C-alpha cells in the first residue's frame, strides 16, 4: 500500500517520455513569471519532419513556450528534450527566428551581416567572418529572395524584407528543428508566400518547424500539424483532425479565469489549505 502511494508520487521514467527520434519533446513544462504560471503543464511531442503551427489568442503563452524551450526564460518545472537530449547539447540542430520587434533595426549592420550572425557559432570564438561564410550567408539571402538587398542597411528594408533576413539567418544554421516566433506578423503577401515556400522546402528536406502563427485562415493551408495553446495545451495533432470548430472555441473562448486566479494566489505565495 505504501508502494502504491509511492508509485503515484514517483515520476514516470524520462526515457519513455522523450523518444530520441522526436525533434522536440516537452514533458509537463510549466513556465512562471514571479511564481505566476504563464503556461501550465505542457506535455507535447513534436512529429518529425512536419510543419507545426502554434496557435492561440494573445497572451496565451506562445512566445513563452518557445523561449522556455530555448532556455531564454527559466522553467518552473518540467523538462525539454531536443532529439532526445538536453537543448544545451543540441544547440547546433536548433534554428530560432525571434520576433521582428525584438531588435533595434537602426543598428549599423547590413542584411548580409545579420544573416552571417547565424554562422557565428560555427565560426567560433574570436575568429572573424571569412569570405566563405559571407558566401553561405549570401546563398541563404538568395533563397529568401533578398540577394539584391544584401548591402542595404537593415533600417532601409521593409517589414517583410526584415523578416526574410531573419529567416535567412536561421537558414544558414542548417538546423534540423526550427522555432519561429510570428514570422508572418506584419509582412506583405509576397513575403508571406516566400516564407511558406521556404517552410515547405524545409519540410521536404525532413526538417521540423514550429511556427507561432496568428492567422487562423491560413492554418489549414500552410500547416500539417497544429498545437492549440491557451495557457495550457488545448489540443494537438494533425491539422485535419485537431483544427476543429470545437477545439478553436476551447482555445479562443476566453482564458480560463480559474487559471488566472490560481496563478494570482501562487504569486502571493499564500497557501490556501
Amino acid at each position, binding site marked *: 500500500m505504501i508502494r502504491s502511494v509511492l508509485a503515484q508520487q514517483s515520476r514516470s521514467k524520462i526515457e519513455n517520455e522523450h523518444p530520441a527520434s522526436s525533434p522536440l519533446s516537452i514533458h509537463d513544462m510549466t513556465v512562471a513569471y514571479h511564481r505566476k504560471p504563464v503556461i501550465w503543464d505542457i506535455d507535447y511531442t513534436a512529429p518529425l519532419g512536419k510543419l507545426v503551427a502554434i496557435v492561440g489568442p494573445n497572451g496565451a503563452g506562445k512566445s513563452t513556450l518557445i523561449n522556455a524551450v530555448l532556455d531564454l526564460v527559466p522553467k518552473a518545472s518540467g523538462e525539454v528534450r531536443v532529439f532526445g537530449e538536453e537543448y544545451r547539447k543540441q544547440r547546433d540542430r536548433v534554428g530560432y527566428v525571434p520576433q521582428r520587434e525584438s531588435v533595434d533595426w537602426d543598428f*549599423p549592420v547590413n542584411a548580409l551581416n545579420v544573416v552571417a550572425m547565424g554562422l557565428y557559432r560555427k565560426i567560433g570564438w574570436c575568429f572573424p567572418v571569412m569570405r566563405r561564410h559571407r558566401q553561405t550567408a549570401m546563398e541563404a539571402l538568395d533563397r529568401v529572395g533578398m540577394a539584391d538587398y544584401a548591402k542595404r542597411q537593415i533600417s532601409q528594408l521593409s517589414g*517583410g524584407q526584415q523578416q526574410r533576413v531573419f529567416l535567412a539567418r536561421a537558414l544558414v544554421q542548417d538546423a534540423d528543428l526550427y522555432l519561429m516566433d510570428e514570422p508572418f506578423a506584419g509582412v506583405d503577401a509576397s513575403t508571406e508566400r516566400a516564407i511558406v515556400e521556404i517552410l515547405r522546402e524545409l519540410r521536404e528536406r525532413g526538417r521540423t518547424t514550429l511556427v507561432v502563427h496568428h492567422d487562423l485562415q491560413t492554418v489549414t493551408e500552410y500547416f500539417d500539424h497544429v498545437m492549440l495553446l491557451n495557457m495550457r495545451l488545448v489540443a494537438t495533432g494533425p491539422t485535419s483532425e485537431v483544427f476543429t470548430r470545437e477545439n478553436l472555441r476551447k482555445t479562443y473562448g476566453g482564458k480560463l479565469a480559474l487559471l488566472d486566479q490560481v496563478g494570482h494566489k501562487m504569486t502571493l505565495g499564500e497557501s490556501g489549505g
Partner: protein
Amino acid sequence: MSSVEKRIGFALLVAVIYLGNAASCIAEPLDHSHSTRPPARSLSRDRLEWPALSDVKRTLLLRDYNTRIVAIGTTMLGAAAGIVGVFMLLRKRSLIGDVVSHSTWPGIAIAFLVMERIKTDGGKWLPGLLVGALLAGVAGILCTKLILRYTRIKEDAALAIVLSVFFGAGMSLFKAVQYIPSGSQAGLNHFILGKTASMVSADVWIIGEASLAILIVIGLLFKEFSLLSFDDKFASSQGWPVFRLDLSLMLLVAGVTVIGLQSVGLLLVVAMLITPAAAARFWSDRLGRTTAIAACLGGSGAFCGVLLSAMFPRLAAGPVIVLTGALFFIISLFLGVRRGVIVRIVTHRRLKTAVGRQHILRALFEYLEPHCDPAAPMSSQLVNHIVSANELLPMRSWTLKRLRHLLRTAEKSNFIAVVREGGYRMTNRGAELAHRVVRNHRLWELYLIEHADIAPSHVDRDADDIEHLLAADIVESLERLLSERYPHMTVPPSPHAIDSAPGSTIRQSTS
C-alpha cells in the same frame, strides 16, 4: 574597399606616423630645456592670453616633451574610449560609464590607504591606485546589477543611486585621508577633474598598454560583442554566454574609465565614451566603420584638446578635450554623410522635388487621358496638347502657388515646355516619364486593391518600379489582369475614377 574606407585608412596612417614620430622621442627627452614654459607672460590673469607664434609652432610639432607625452597618452585613450563607447551606445547603456567613473573614487582612496599602510609615503603608486579604481568601478556595476535583479527599482534610479552613493563614500574617505600626516595624499584630487600636465612617461606607458589591451580584446571579440549588442536573445539561444560577455564589456568600460581618470578626471571621462561614439553614428551605417570612425574622432578630439590646452595654459585639458569632442559631435550632427542633419534635409528635399515632379506629370497625364484616342499610343498624343495651370488646379489638392512652382521646376528639368503665356505642353522626355510614373502608380494601386492585407511601407509608389519590390509572378498577374480589363491601353488606366471634370477646354497645339 570603398573611398570612405580609403580615406579613413589614410587619415589613420597619417596619425600613426605623426604620433609614431613623436613616440620615438619619448625615451629620451631631447630638448628638456625647452620644456619648461616661459614664466607668466601677463599680469592680468583674467584674460585668455594668446600664445606666441613660436609657442604654437612648438606645440603643434610636439617639440615639447611634456606635451608629446600627454598627447600620445590621451590620444590612445580617446581612441580606446571611442571604440568601447560604440558598443555601449548600441546597447543603450551609455550612462553606465558615468556610474563607473563616479564609483572609482572610493577605490582610489582605499587603495591609497592600503598602500600607505604597506609603505609610508608609498600611497601614490599609480598602478595600485588604478587597480583600486578599477575594482571599485566594477563593484559599482555589480551593485547596479544587484539592485536591478533584486529590487523593483528601475535602471535609471539604480544608476543614479550607485553613482552618488559611491561618490559620497569616496568624498568622505578622501576628506578623512587629508588628515593623514604623511603628506603624500596631495594631488589625489587630480583624479576628479584630471590633470594632464602632471603625467609622466610612466603614466603614458600604463595608458598605452591598457588601451592596447582593450583594443586587442575588442578586436578579438568584435563579432561576439556586435551580436550581443544587436540581438542578445538570439545570442543567448545560440549558446553564447550573454551575461559574461556583457560583464566583459562592462569591464572594458571600467578599464577605459580608469585610465581616463588622470587626463580628463572622473567627472568628465564619460564624455570620452559617449560623444565620439554618438558622433560616429552620423557617418556610417556599418558597425566596423562606425567603430573606426569613433576611434578616429575620439583620438583626434583628445589630441586637439591636449594641444589646445598646451597652447593656452589656463585652459585645463579635461574640459577642453570634452569640448573638442562636443565640437566634433556638432559638426558630425550636421555634416555626417549617413545620418547627419544636412544629408537628411537634402534627401528630404530631393524626395520632395521628385514627388512634386511625379505629381505634376501624373496630373498632366490624367488630365489629358480622356481626350486621347485610346487606339493610338498614348505617349505620342500627350505632347500635342496645351494645358494651363488653372485647368490642372482641380486635379490635386494643391494651391495655385505650389502648382506654379512645380510647373516651373518641371520646365527647368525640361519635362514640359511653355508654349505661350500660361500654356504648357509635355516634352517627349516628359511624356515618357509621365507614362512610366502613371503605370507604376496604377500597378501599385491595383496591387493594394488585390492584395489588400499589407503592403510594404517604405515605398514611393510613383517612383519605385513595382518589379523591384514585388515578386515577378505577382507583377505579371497584375499586368495580365489590367490588360484583360483594358486591352487597348499600354499604360494601365487608373483603377479609381480621377476626380476632375474632363473639360472641353483642350486645344490642339498650334505648332
